[in-house]
């Protein structure tokens, strides 16, 4: 039967094609139903948390929590610093120089690109869990990252976060579970398909197969090198100091999804109350209180212009910092903002907001001079 040019496409379907429609429906039902059922029926063998934490889809840095706790207990430091490249391009990757400068004992928990979610887990699952009682735990923060809970929690960062997780993380899951959700039919369909409890959501299978392929590739491609050694090599080879300056600068590009204002939170700089309520900050203060820890939040000065002024510091951000300080101090913490410190010149910055290595000795001395009063 040849369809009329004016006939509707569907109406023109011949009887033989009706059989085709039936087969199409059966085909679609099988293709989309079997994968929804199969991973629920066939469960992968459970791995111990520590073992899975050691694996990563890109084999980048992960934290061995028990080992870090053991190192921390052995060090029994006076002060613990937690942060990302803002910390280690200022005070160093390891605390030896700070120890020598101050005559005190420091311990650093540092990771490239880590953010407030990772700092919260480090505080709770490493510092508090270790039983060590430092005189002060301090965090190097930038802009409003301490109240941007979703910042750097996906992709590679999720792997690092998972390596810090304990068996139960109600606060983390509750906060990240409140990630702004897309509205409209696309958002609803997305949640129906692969949201928690969705048709195609398989937490048991999370990263299981990709990890096995990675392990196989490690066995084939790096014969004679144990996987743990290769992971450690990968971690150090792709560390910040090996990256191109433009990539190592750690200045997120606008709209890159790596910025300071994750989806739906772009207006929080001017709305501090909401940011504070949804951030990890209250949980950090609570953890500190429970374990008798004193916290200091040190807000670094972003790269200034040639006159030493931070041009990115908008009036809204200035207001935000004021609120942040008030809140932290009201809750028993300490806050130090070096943004307006004219003694920190542009010349010490190497790339982005990082301080150049040859200026780090100067910075350490300056840091200690300016903040010594806060360190009990």
């Amino acid at each position, binding site marked *: 039967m040849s369809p009329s040019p004016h006939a509707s496409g569907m109406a023109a379907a011949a009887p033989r094609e009706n059989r085709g429609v039936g087969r199409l429906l059966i085909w679609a039902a099988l293709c989309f139903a079997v994968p929804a059922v199969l991973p629920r029926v066939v469960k992968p063998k459970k791995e111990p948390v520590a073992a899975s934490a050691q694996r990563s889809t890109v084999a980048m840095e992960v934290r061995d929590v028990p080992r870090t706790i053991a190192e921390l207990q052995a060090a029994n430091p006076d002060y613990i610093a937690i942060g990302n490249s803002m910390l280690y391009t200022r005070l160093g990757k390891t605390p030896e120089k700070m120890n020598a400068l101050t005559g005190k004992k420091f311990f650093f928990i540092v990771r490239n690109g880590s953010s407030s979610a990772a700092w919260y887990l480090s505080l709770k699952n490493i510092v508090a869990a270790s039983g060590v009682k430092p005189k002060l735990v301090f965090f190097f923060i930038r802009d409003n990252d301490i109240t941007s809970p979703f910042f750097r929690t996906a992709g590679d960062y999720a792997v690092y976060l998972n390596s810090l997780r304990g068996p139960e993380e109600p606060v983390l899951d509750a906060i990240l579970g409140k990630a702004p959700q897309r509205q409209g039919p696309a958002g609803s369909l997305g949640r129906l398909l692969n949201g928690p409890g969705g048709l195609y959501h398989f937490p048991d299978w999370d990263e299981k197969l990709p990890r096995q392929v990675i392990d196989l590739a490690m066995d084939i491609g790096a014969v004679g090198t144990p996987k743990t050694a290769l992971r450690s090599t990968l971690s150090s080879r792709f560390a910040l100091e090996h990256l*191109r300056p433009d990539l190592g600068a750690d200045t997120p590009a606008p709209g890159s999804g790596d910025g300071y204002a994750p989806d739906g939170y772009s207006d929080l700089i001017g709305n501090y109350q909401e940011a504070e309520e949804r951030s990890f900050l209250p949980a950090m203060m609570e953890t500190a209180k429970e374990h008798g820890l004193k916290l200091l939040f040190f807000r670094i000065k972003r790269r200034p212009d040639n006159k030493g002024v931070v041009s990115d510091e908008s009036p809204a951000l200035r207001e935000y910092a004021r609120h942040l300080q008030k809140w932290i101090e009201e809750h028993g913490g300490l806050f130090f903002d070096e943004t307006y410190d004219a003694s920190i010149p542009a010349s010490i910055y190497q790339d982005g907001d990082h301080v150049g290595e040859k200026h780090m000795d100067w910075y350490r001395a300056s840091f200690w001079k300016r903040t010594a009063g806060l360190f009990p």
Partner: protein
Amino acid sequence: MIFQSIDYLVFLVCVLAIYWAMRHRAQNVVLLIAGYVFYGYVHPWYGILLGATTLVDFVCSRKIEDEPARKRFWLGCILLSNFTVLATFKYFGFFTENLVAILQAMGMNASVPLFKMLLPAGVSFYTFQSCAYAVDVYRGDTRARRNLLDYSVYVAFFPQLVAGPIERADHLLVQVERPRRFNATVVRDALFLFLWGLVKKRVIADTAALYCNKAFSLGDSSFPLVWAGVLCFCVQIYADFSAYTDMARASAKLLGFDLRQNFNHPWLAQSPADFWRRWHMSLSSWFRDYVFIPLGGSRCSEGKIVRNLMITFLLSGLWHGASWNFILWGGWWGVWLVIWRQFERGAPGFAKNKGALPSLIRWGVTFVLMNIGWLMFREQNLHELVRQMTANPFTAPKDDWHIAGFFTALMVLYSIPLWLHAALEKPLLSRWEDLRDTWKGFMLQTLGGIVLFLLLLLMSSKVSSDFIYFQF
């Protein structure tokens, strides 16, 4: 809107539901609206540019046919308007930056205000498609269309609007003009093809991109890591671009259209010319038909053939992006096409020998040339490019060899589906027409669909990136 998003899924289902309930003329209206919604989804002003291009080309093409005495003038108008759009959005910044650099090198204190604007997605694709139509009308190869709706659908056909395949009027426009029939078997094939495209994009290309980006993020990369990164990029770009084409072709099939093939297993190429017959076929045939042949093609003196090849490939490089590395990449292929041509003339016995060893050698050489080309394509920083090209394998640390070995093995594992596809497609396709309507064919396709969907669910990369060719 990107094919691998939920947004597109919702959009496509809505379009299909409305589309198949309509008659032919109304279907075209639906397609036109869908094309503009799809294109203007992120930046609505893109639609204005698309509409203006369509209108100018439609009117001037009619003039070419209506006023034969002035047809050269009207063709000039079309080419000028299209290439002005391209030059403004794509090349203006590149040319001014280079002009300033030249003037500064000459000691002049030049300062041209930087004119940076967002490159509208797909502008290189639809302007080339529109130009092809105008040239075809000018040559008398096709007639100027009198129906603005049909022509607008041809330019704004959403499955291939943003990254091709670049279509011709005698293939796509005639389908727009003809009524389409719903065919459930074709729909099944289309869904299967879409799934295969999704797997290529989300499982293979996005995973390869992670490792490629890692390798290219190093400021002190060594020989093994550079080339392991290039291999990752080789897998990424093929999986990524062919995935887009598969999903475009699948979306078109769902609407009752057939789009051209854009890839024919380029990794199997046995010479540079063979590579260009297999890679981005719609673009290479465009350059062949509208640049190389008008320049004289290969029916002229050897010197002119060399010139024609070099011009064609340098322009092809420039088409990809306003950056010197793309021009270098085009030049690289142009030079090798010229060299291979001489080789074929000098040693025809070897060049055309179908024996296993000669074939293997030709394949190996072409594969290496392709990967050196990909390094030029990927690395936009020319200083880095020189450093990477001259990296010494003997000074590379042992650890870097281990990492490179791991990256390479991973890419080999992830590209297994692509090799399987290359090996199985020909024997399977030749029998598919007979098999498709049988239960055996049905079961085979069902099993394949389940496997693909499971792969998609369980092996997708956690990080999804845009299609590489969107930037062109």
